[in-house]
């Protein structure tokens, strides 16, 4: 609103900052509490009035060391990384091609795709896992990371294709027509002319696919019965049901599962808002 005046900080702006900080304290309390729990020994937490800040004399990172030693967290994180990058890269390629086609050519698929997107959101994952298991069991792909990657790609693609269509819509068709008159083939035009212009779209798709694949629990749980093939989310879930939960260790594992997405998110978040803006608000 007050962009023109924004060079000088007004008291009102500092007030907004104060409000934002107060809101963040409430909204991010769960994250704070995870960190806090992970650095305080379990026995000090099991009281009816736990300390609200880590006590200086007993705070330590021991829980991280213990949990890394007692469970294959590193391996689980690595499996998650493979699944996540595999999913994100394949999704980007598929949805760029699909989004370009939906944007530039009028086919019946265009109408069907919007419906498909919403329909895919509507399907209960718990209904799908039995058939998905059957499919991959008959293909002999249980305990195979590719199975998890493929299912996650399938879960991501309806949305990301629609997202990419929005980004391609924003690029004037004249640009590629000019390139094609110069004798470029369609696919080469796409690669050399369109893809460089799609960078914000690619970043948005990448972030979305990463968050979805990294957070997936149901599919990985179903397709990976073998604990050494688990992803980090399946590993964490295995803590929760235990008879006496090691809260410090669980929260330490939880933090470790968040950090990679956090880093990714901080870098790509500006694209995300821009991406949503150009991809979504057209009418």
């Amino acid at each position: 609103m007050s962009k023109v005046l924004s060079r000088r900080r007004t008291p009102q702006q500092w007030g907004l900052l104060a409000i934002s900080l107060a809101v963040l304290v409430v909204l991010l309390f769960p994250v704070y509490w995870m960190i806090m729990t992970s650095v305080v020994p379990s026995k000090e937490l099991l009281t009816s009035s736990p300390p609200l800040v880590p006590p200086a004399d007993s705070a330590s990172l021991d829980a991280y060391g213990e949990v890394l030693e007692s469970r294959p967290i590193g391996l689980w994180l690595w499996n998650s990384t493979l699944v996540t990058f595999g999913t994100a890269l394949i999704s980007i390629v598929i949805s760029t091609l699909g989004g370009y086609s939906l944007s530039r050519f009028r086919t019946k698929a265009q109408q069907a795709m919007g419906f498909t997107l919403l329909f895919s959101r509507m399907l209960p994952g718990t209904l799908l896992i039995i058939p998905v298991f059957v499919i991959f069991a008959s293909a002999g792909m249980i305990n195979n990371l590719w199975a998890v990657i493929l299912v996650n790609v399938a879960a991501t693609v309806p949305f990301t294709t629609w997202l990419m269509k929005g980004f391609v819509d924003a690029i004037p068709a004249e640009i590629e027509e000019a390139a094609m008159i110069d004798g470029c083939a369609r696919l080469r035009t796409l690669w050399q002319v369109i893809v460089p212009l799609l960078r914000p779209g690619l970043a948005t798709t990448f972030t979305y696919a990463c968050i979805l694949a990294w957070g997936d629990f149901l599919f990985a749980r179903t397709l990976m019965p073998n604990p050494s093939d688990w992803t980090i989310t399946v590993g964490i879930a295995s803590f929760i049901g235990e008879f006496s939960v090691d809260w410090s260790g669980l929260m330490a594992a939880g933090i470790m599962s968040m950090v990679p997405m956090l880093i990714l998110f901080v870098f790509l978040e500006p694209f995300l808002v821009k991406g949503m803006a150009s991809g979504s608000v057209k009418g």
Partner: protein
Amino acid sequence: MTDVLAPARTTRPSPPKRRRSRAQRDRIFAWSMLTPTIAAVGLLMAYPIYIAINLSFRGGEIADLQNLGQYPLTLGNYADVITDPQLLGDIWRSIVYTVGVVVPAFAIGLGLALLLNKTFPGKRIVRPLALLPWAVPGVAVSAAFSWMLDGSFGVINYLLRSVGLIEQNVAWLASSDTAMTAVIIPTVWKFYPFFTLVLVAALQAIPGDLYEAARLDGASAWQQFRYVTWPALRAPAALAIVITGVGVFREFDFIFPLTGGGPDDATTTLAVRIYNEAFEYFTFGASAAIGVVTMVIAGALLLMAGRSVREGMN
């Protein structure tokens, strides 16, 4: 995204008429580029739905899921599921859960979006932090909240006791009166950033001179919101509500790790029931039948919402 539900409109003029061979080549090219998308959607949607529907019509003790043909066809699963009074309860709890998540998540998302649309120092750091819960894996969210909501040592009880809102500890997840609230809270936390993201994007697209003009006409802050901001937000907001709503309606990742559907079925939504029928009782046919019923209900809700979303966009 806003025009997902609208019949596809072409924003560009149709291409000039070309020779037929060219048009045909274009068609082949268009469809071949779509093939991977269609294959991916088919893998997760078309074929699994076929198997699920097939399964829902099979009777007998189903043990071999890979060869469904050997089991007799029957309508028995549907008859059992629909006459079971529990189904209505499951549907009701799914609706309570969905509304209970979407309303607060939207309110928080909208408030935050309005705040983040203003200019203030440090906004570049505040914004990613405010959106952060979106990036946290659902299972980690569940783990954090199962600890915070713990009946004996949970910090939420401690804070509520400290400010005097409760006198005794509440067993949030273990009591059937509070369990639904207790699974709604983490879900809200995970879902509000999506609303913020969509709404911030929509707010940034509103031209600043509209506010200028409204101020010159003497519009109050509320009137500016009512007549400038809200009309621009309506369509994206409606769409985000529908997308989130159908997603939450069949959400599993928060309820199951926290309560498993208990206590006393207090948090058994349709999604949890589908899972429990299949993996606790191994009644695959009934599980699939409930799944199909869920799909039909969600589809009906979607059609109803679809109309209002489309109206909101015109």
